[in-house]
């Protein structure tokens, strides 16, 4: 009798939750269609020029590539180690600072004292104008800096894994999450302690660009460098994960860590490989976004972190392609939303996209596919 009633109640509540779920999905679809129609009518009506839309799209794609690049590392560690790493944003900053210090020392050697060059003009006497770094005028320094950013971030992630996360491997995700918040604070303010807290320009000199025929937008050398490097790295990750034994081992570990260990997969080595790949991509992303925006600050990685989380959740945690795709979507959402809303709400728009995604499809667009 009692179980009968409970059965009815359960069926009822299940039915109600389905009814409650559908309208939300429907609502999102309707809103998307309405926005698309409005966009077209704005273009046809002339209240939005093709040029400004093209600029929004270009900026969004560039931001999206960087978010995707940084998001792949976050997504991999999330699925394999089982916690959202809140220190990820500060890995981005660390990589950028290490890389740009190298670039400055190489590019400005002899003109400004090495001590000031190392501090990037955040404090000290070096300045973007006196050092004059750009991918055209000092290509060697930029390449060296990019390599340094990758190497330094890999070393940093491995060191922090050894000190903080490895002793906690068996604990649940929430404890690791809280530990990562501690790591994030310590890293961010160590950077602030060494470099200072101002936000100076970092690149100097004139940067050549090419005009895209027809639309009238210009793509400058730094944007092109960023796009080429980011796409190259993402393709590289795809090849590694798809065609090597390491990729298979990672998928196995993300799926079931104990089973993976029982089957003889060296789980610690896989974890280390995850940090190496994820950390390397993160460092590169930090260096490249600084090259493109032309400014640096001790907390810029932390500011980016929520957007990266949004991308990773949008794509589905653990899915590398999801992170790339989610990055592009979030990047586009935060620039194209300028068509409708004032500029101080663009970040809000990106966060709202993430929250709606969690409501509609918590597993993400590429959910169910882990690490590949």
């Amino acid at each position, binding site marked *: 009798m009692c179980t009968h009633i*409970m059965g009815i109640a359960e069926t009822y509540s299940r039915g109600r939750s389905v009814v409650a779920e559908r309208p939300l999905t429907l609502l999102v679809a309707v809103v998307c269609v309405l926005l698309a129609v409005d966009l077209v009518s704005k273009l046809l009506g002339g209240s939005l020029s093709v040029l400004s839309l093209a600029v929004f799209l270009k900026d969004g794609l560039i931001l999206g590539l960087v978010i995707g690049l940084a998001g792949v590392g976050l997504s991999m560690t999330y699925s394999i180690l089982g*916690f*959202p790493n809140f220190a990820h944003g500060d890995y981005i900053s660390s990589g950028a600072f290490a890389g740009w210090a190298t670039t400055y020392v190489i590019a400005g050697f002899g003109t400004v004292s*090495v*001590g*000031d060059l*190392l*501090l990037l003009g955040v*404090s*000290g006497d070096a300045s973007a104008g006196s050092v004059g770094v750009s991918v055209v005028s000092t290509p060697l320094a930029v390449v060296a800096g990019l390599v340094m950013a990758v190497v330094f971030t890999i070393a940093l992630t491995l060191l922090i894994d050894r000190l*903080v996360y490895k*002793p*906690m491997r068996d*604990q649940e*995700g*929430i*404890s690791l*999450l*809280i*530990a990562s*918040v*501690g*790591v*994030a*604070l*310590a*890293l*961010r*303010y*160590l950077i*602030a*302690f*060494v*470099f*200072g*807290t101002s936000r100076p320009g970092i690149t100097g000199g004139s940067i050549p660009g090419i005009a895209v025929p027809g639309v009238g937008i210009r793509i400058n050398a730094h944007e092109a460098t960023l796009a080429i490097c980011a796409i190259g790295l993402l393709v590289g990750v795809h090849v590694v994960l798809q065609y090597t034994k390491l990729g298979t081992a990672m998928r196995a570990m993300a799926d079931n860590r104990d089973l993976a260990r029982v089957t003889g997969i060296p789980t610690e080595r896989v974890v280390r490989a995850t940090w190496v790949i994820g950390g390397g991509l993160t460092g590169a992303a930090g260096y490249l976004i600084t090259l493109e925006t032309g400014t640096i600050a001790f907390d810029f990685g932390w500011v980016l972190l*929520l957007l990266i*989380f*949004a991308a990773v*959740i949008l794509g589905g945690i653990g899915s590398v392609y999801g992170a790339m795709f989610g990055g592009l979507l979030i990047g586009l959402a935060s620039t194209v939303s300028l068509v409708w809303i*004032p500029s*101080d*709400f663009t*970040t*809000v728009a990106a*966060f*709202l996209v*993430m*929250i709606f995604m*969690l*409501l509609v499809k*918590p597993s993400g667009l590429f959910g169910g596919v882990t690490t590949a």
Partner: protein
Amino acid sequence: MSSATERVAARLPDNDAVLILGVLFGLYVGFTVLGMALGLDIAGLASTLQRITFFAAVYALLALALNLQWGYAGLLNIGVAGFMAVGVYTMAMLTAPASPAAGGVPGLGLPLWVGVVGGMVAAALVGALAALPALRLKADYLAIVTLGLSEIIRLTYNSTTFQTFSIAGADLGTGASQGIQTPTNPVMALYYTTPSSPAAGKTGLGEAVFGFFKTLGLDEPVVVDWTYTIVLVIFVGLFYLLLTRVGNSPFGRVLKAIREDELVASSLGKNTNRFKIKTFMLGCALMGLGGILWQGSQQLVNPALFLPIITFYVFIALIIGGSGSNTGSVIGGALFAGLLFEGPTFVRRLVQQTVDLGGAPNTFTDAIAALGSLDVGPLLAYTLADVSSLRFVLVGVVLVYLVQNRPDGLLGHRKETAAAVSLARERTAAGQADGGETEVDDE
């Protein structure tokens, strides 16, 4: 101060009251010694201790509210700062004068109590909005959503779009990045005939109290600040009583059951989702009130006061004390405020006063370069000058240390049991002497 604490203490189990008072006493002694070493006079000492007590009380308030969500129901909310902001801003917008002085932001001009209740209700409603995804998501997703929500809230208050706007003919606004003025602190009305302008004259009580403390060498602002701090301490007591009542009620037992094993709780016929939403809303309302009591008392609030770092401070306070324990939350708040928040600045002042390190070098590399000539002075001076950054590093390191080594907080395992009756007493009665342990692990 002491009478309020004693009144609260009388209601606490002996052991916990002694612990809380012991921690406060330890902090007071420590800072009095530090202050005397710095050469502070009686007024300086009084205002130092007031600062310590103020921050200990506000962090205790917020840690208690977070403990309800995380410690009792296992809901990981890292948007504390956002819910505080909703509370304070709603209160400020409701109470700001309809026609403000030049440069002010117009509001609805309602009485203070309407503003406070409105702020708590608004925070609870926003909490319900956040709890919606909480129902179907894992704890780590909820963490990201609440962090995102707190940033959405801060960016919205920071936006120039809502600097001033009008709804149904009434003008109001958020003041954007310049902030919005908050009502005059009601404790002023105890001492002054016109609370907003102390120069206009004092009440009888004001004359008497100020006259008495004048003989001790304490000025009017110190006395007013202490009065408000005592109000905060009383609120800590009220929060504590409320949450203890909630925790021991049938409602609280379901929450603890959800925390331990949600599947079991729902198999027993409890609608766990509804319990979670209610808990989340109550916690958010308390965070809103905590925000009002803290930032609402500072005359002006702006969005920069509600950065996510505030949330992490509250988390550290809770983790120091041990999540799941109300006593732990209060002690954690006090220890965080005293040792991590105020401590480093005092140590810096003391070192700067006693040791002459010369001028601090301008940059880190200059300080390091001096090491080459075996001179540690410049690096020390640079470190002391930039102690505000190192304080955050210290906070981060402490957080990692606690999670790794003392995940149950300094007091050890103090999670309250989910059972209705005290298991400890039962055991003692059965002759199994339990030593000093008051709580028994139910896992």
